[in-house]
């Protein structure tokens, strides 16, 4: 199969821990089988920062915690035929979404930043300021699941998803015969 006939996959990690990208490697030796069918475009795995052309599948790790995440996610929706949310953070916000519901707080984002940079017992921050360099992406008021920002076609659950569910989903999507997950493969942890 020539390079042009291979399906193109793009991946990105938004507000995630990169664990879902590591989980892609849990496909193990089946990666060789998969790589006969696909080629990676924009992805941390190729270190390509922009799309070279339209992709068949876009894989999103992590939800949206800042404005850059939103821009990147919309760019993926524009450039990918099928968009997959990979893992709990992309699906429902995950651990970063814990800042959405800080107890007794009217302004959870401010309380989160103040504890992280100013008031926390174990902080050594000589500037006594919350970082505000213009180069830093603006944080959103809350962490949003991907499906709140763009239309998501498929969600692969897990934290991180198993190599089996990632491989089975990708290979059945590429073969055009995806009919849902095997129930024993569905895990939220």
């Amino acid at each position, binding site marked *: 199969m020539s390079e042009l006939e291979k399906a193109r996959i793009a991946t990105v990690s938004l507000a995630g821990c990169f664990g879902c990208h590591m989980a892609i490697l849990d496909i193990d030796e089946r990666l060789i089988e998969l790589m006969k069918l696909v080629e990676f475009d924009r992805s941390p795995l190729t270190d390509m920062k922009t799309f070279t052309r339209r992709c068949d599948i876009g894989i999103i790790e992590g939800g949206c915690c800042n404005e850059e995440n939103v821009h990147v996610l919309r760019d993926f929706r524009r450039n990918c035929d099928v968009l997959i*949310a990979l893992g*709990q953070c992309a699906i*429902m*916000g*995950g*651990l970063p*979404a*814990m800042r*959405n*519901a*800080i*107890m*007794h*707080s009217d302004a959870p984002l401010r309380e989160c930043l103040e504890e992280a940079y100013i008031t926390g017992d174990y902080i050594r921050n000589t500037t006594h300021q919350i970082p505000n360099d213009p180069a830093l992406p603006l944080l959103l008021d*809350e962490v949003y*699941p991907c*499906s709140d920002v763009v*239309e*998501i076609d498929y*969600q692969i*659950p897990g*934290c991180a998803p198993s190599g089996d569910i990632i491989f089975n989903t990708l290979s059945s999507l590429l073969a055009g015969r995806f009919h*849902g*997950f095997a*129930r*024993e493969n*569905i*895990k*939220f*942890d």
Partner: protein
Amino acid sequence: MSDPDFTFTIDGTTIPAKPGQTIMEAADAAGVYIPRLCDHEGLRHQGGCRVCTVKAGGRSVAACTQPAAPKLVVENETDHINKLRRDLVEMLFHEGNHLCPICEASGNCELQAMAYRLDMTGPTKFPYLEPCRAVDASHPDIALDTNRCISCSRCIRASQDVDHKGVFGYVGRGIHRRVAVNGSDLAHTDADITDHAISADVCPVGCIIRKGVGFATPIGEREFDHGLIGSDIEGKRRE
């Protein structure tokens, strides 16, 4: 003289039943699983969560409280009913703060297991309410994280009917109704780690936490990592 035993059908399968049995009790005995969250063996039935909704004679009823009747035609595992159940379970996830990756109950959680069984994997159409609820870690042996509470009342019924204590109860109305403790906090109640209400089986989620035993069984080797919820009841049918 008592009424004779009778039969009814669930999804076309003939189910034997005794007078006074609910649809769910007869189904359990026959090895037919009807999904449920608020119903628990040994506690009185409540009919609160509605996850056990079935169509009986064409009407939607809670299988845990509806008495079985002769020649009743019950629909259980249909696409329509399972979609209703999936929506109910999804709304329970969205109504509290259910972060499976950080929850000690993950893998033993009936809410999570029900989501697995009902294939809750599609993009959601409901908003996340993200309530702010305080954690009560005042008791030396027990912690309460009501962010994970689904208001099933299993702890209320266990404490009242089995322990005869009344440690837990409902407060508030409608969407504001919550499970609360009978005291300023859990340390100021007569709750004890040996109470049935505190035992690992009663709370279906990770709300009642027994201190000191967390993660004794690693993630991946827990109850619902080994089989779907309800597979023990369905196993009876194959035997």
